[in-house]
């Protein structure tokens, strides 16, 4: 009879504090702890990396189905050989996972059943079969049967030395395979048809990829469990994707995410041996995911929100500047002194927003407070002129080159004036050498000092 790891000394009568336990954990006095930790880190890394390819192939939940499909294999192996030898279990699980994989593949190709339904059917059928066999085994009079149900939710503490040795061999094999076939897998993941046209034996590599996924799923069952294995394949890549766009970096990050969650969950398993490990791994993975989703430097939601707000603010301010230019133009360039209701007469804006924006513009030295309200400063004038110029140039361009009628061009120019660059402005000017007026008959202001070349032309 094989014995599970006892991570906690059962003789300790007064339970030591959490910190004491953590301290003990990191001292690695218990070699077993070190083994379990290393095993789970390796699993976290390899599952995350191989799961990334499944994700990129748009088969994110394949791991879920394959993990469920492994269950009857484990039970069958036990029924046939009456042993809990890790290798036998492993082979049984791999076999039935692979059958599951083929069914998922076969059903949508040969029947009306859609891929998502095929996945759900395979998953639930195999799982039911596994549970049926498990309940059958539990009714039998055999030895060694206790602990079989641990693979449902995973229990790091129940792993044996043999389990961990096998886990290490398999995960290292997976990692080596990924390194060796990185280029091929990448090509298949991003463009299967292109890979095929290059004469690659795509089917063979897909099969290899499937085998690697199956292996990492199966070997992870004791740590994470059947039900939640999907998350270990899927969540790390979803997290890593928030941080980078380059596949190599993403894979490293995904591996790191997997490793971190493995460390966290192993510690919890050490502190509370009765706790199933799998759920804790999933919770730590998901926490990392949601943190990244919110706070990742480029693609995080907070960053995106801030950038959007910044853009909105910029558009608002520029709209005000342009409105002021128009007012100034209407007074035949004499009266540079406006109040809020002047602005609102030309452009609908809430007073509150307008006040805030005006204050901001004053602070940036584009406006100055004056007798009636505000006046454009030198800088403000320059920027307002440039914006108006871009707006009207664009209107002209649409009118002349795209033959849009004058009443169609305004709203488009309204949007583009904020993002046109100096370079584009010059190009427009080249294209429209003769035009001095926009389609509505307003004069296009000359470029300011900063764009010397502009003012020289015509």
């Amino acid at each position, binding site marked *: 009879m094989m014995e599970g790891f006892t991570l906690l000394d059962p003789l300790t009568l007064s339970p030591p504090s959490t910190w004491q336990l953590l301290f003990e954990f990191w001292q690695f006095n218990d070699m077993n702890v070190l083994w379990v930790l290393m095993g789970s880190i390796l699993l976290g890394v390899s599952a995350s990396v191989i799961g990334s390819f499944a*994700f990129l192939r*748009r088969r*994110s*939940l394949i791991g*879920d189905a394959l993990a469920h499909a492994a269950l009857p294999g484990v039970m069958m192996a036990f029924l046939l050989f009456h042993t809990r030898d890790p290798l036998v279990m492993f082979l049984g699980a791999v076999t039935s996972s692979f059958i599951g994989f083929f069914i998922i593949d076969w059903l949508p190709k*040969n*029947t*009306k*059943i*859609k891929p*998502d*339904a095929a*996945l*759900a*059917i395979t*998953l*639930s*059928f195999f*799982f*039911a*079969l596994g*549970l*049926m*066999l*498990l*309940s*059958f085994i539990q*009714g039998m009079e055999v030895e060694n049967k206790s602990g079989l*149900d641990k693979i*449902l*939710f995973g229990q790091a503490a129940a792993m044996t030395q043999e389990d961990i040795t096998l886990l290490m061999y398999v995960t290292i094999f997976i990692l080596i395979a990924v390194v060796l076939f990185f280029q091929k897998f990448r090509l298949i993941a991003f463009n299967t048809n292109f890979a095929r046209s290059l004469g690659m034996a795509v089917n063979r590599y897909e099969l290899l990829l499937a085998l690697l996924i199956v292996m990492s799923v199966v070997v992870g069952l004791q740590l994470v469990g059947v*039900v*939640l294995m*999907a*998350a270990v394949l*899927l*969540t790390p890549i*979803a997290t890593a994707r*928030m941080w980078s766009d380059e596949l190599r970096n993403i894979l490293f990050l995904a591996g790191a995410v997997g490793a971190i969650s493995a460390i966290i969950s192993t510690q919890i398993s050490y502190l509370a041996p*009765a*706790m*199933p490990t*799998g*759920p*804790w791994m*999933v*919770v730590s993975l*998901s926490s990392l*995911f949601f943190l990244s*989703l919110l706070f990742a430097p480029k693609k995080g*939601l907070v960053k995106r929100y801030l950038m959007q707000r910044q853009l909105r603010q910029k558009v608002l301010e520029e709209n005000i500047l342009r409105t002021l230019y128009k007012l100034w133009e209407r007074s035949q360039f004499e009266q540079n002194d406006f109040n809020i209701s002047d602005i609102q007469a030309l452009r609908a804006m809430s007073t509150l927003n307008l006040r805030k924006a005006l204050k901001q513009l004053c602070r940036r030295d584009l406006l100055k407070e004056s007798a009636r309200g505000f006046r454009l400063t030198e800088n403000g004038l320059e920027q307002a002129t440039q914006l108006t110029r871009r707006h009207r140039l664009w209107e002209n361009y649409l009118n002349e080159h795209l033959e849009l009628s004058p009443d169609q061009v305004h709203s488009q120019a309204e949007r583009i004036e904020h993002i046109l660059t100096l370079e584009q402005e010059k190009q427009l000017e080249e294209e429209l050498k003769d035009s001095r007026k926009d389609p509505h008959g307003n004069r296009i202001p000359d470029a300011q000092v900063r764009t010397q070349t502009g003012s020289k032309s015509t």
Partner: protein
Amino acid sequence: MNDVWIIATASLVAISSALVGVFLILRRQALMGDAISHSVLLGIVLAYLATDSRSLTVMLTGAVLIGLLTAWLSDTLHKVGKLQSDASIGIVFTLFFAIGVILISIYAGQVDLDQECVLYGEIAFVPFDTIVWGSDADGIEIGPRAFWAIGIVFLIVLTSIVVGFERLKTVTFHPSLAVSLGINVVFWHYFLMTLVSMTTVASFDAVGAILVVALLVIPASSAYLVTSSLKGMLWVAAAYGQASVLMGYGIAFLLDSSISASIAVTAGLLLFMTIVVLEIRKKIFGKQIKEALKAS
């Protein structure tokens, strides 16, 4: 008598799931059904911990809220996080399920649930948990709790489908037409998700969180293969569900295995047989057509 209660409960579970499952299959949301049936666990545990009661209303409310949250959060992650839709579903339901399992193991002493029954349900024990009508002393036993729970949900599902049949049909087959007709497609989506949550939670006692997925998708898929109208598919799916219950119960009796697992396995075997029959028919018809072509 106990057998009758068990079979009656299982039949209601299978038929309600099959009816709801038809819409999941047709709308290609089988995975959403999978996700909701997992998340419901968290709803049940939270509802129990919050109110300390296992009344049907509390469980249904908790499950429906969590079910809708799952659907909404997956949808939001898909849109805002720019993730593939099945990836976002996977992230959400594994998290909810994990939290559910953790809460169960933390409050193991308080919650009348364990990891086992989450997986299998305990349909064999269904007859022993009865509702007593009237005061405890001289009330009348009116049957198992689980039976009444799924009975009520079955009526809700049936009524919704009968009353909303035309709407559901339009939304299912022509979503864009439905939009142009002014039908609130989003409402019907979440309505369907509510039905799924209610069915799974009411089935929870009987078959557990995961086997209900089998009953949701497998009979409906079998029916999908052999029918060509929505009404026909609903009837045939229900029939497949009922057949799985009867045969599954027999198998469980013979093998002394878990009843709920055997029912789910039978559903799968029936689907398998359906596919085999269809394939054989395809071969024979294919031959006949070829011969007919040769002869002409």
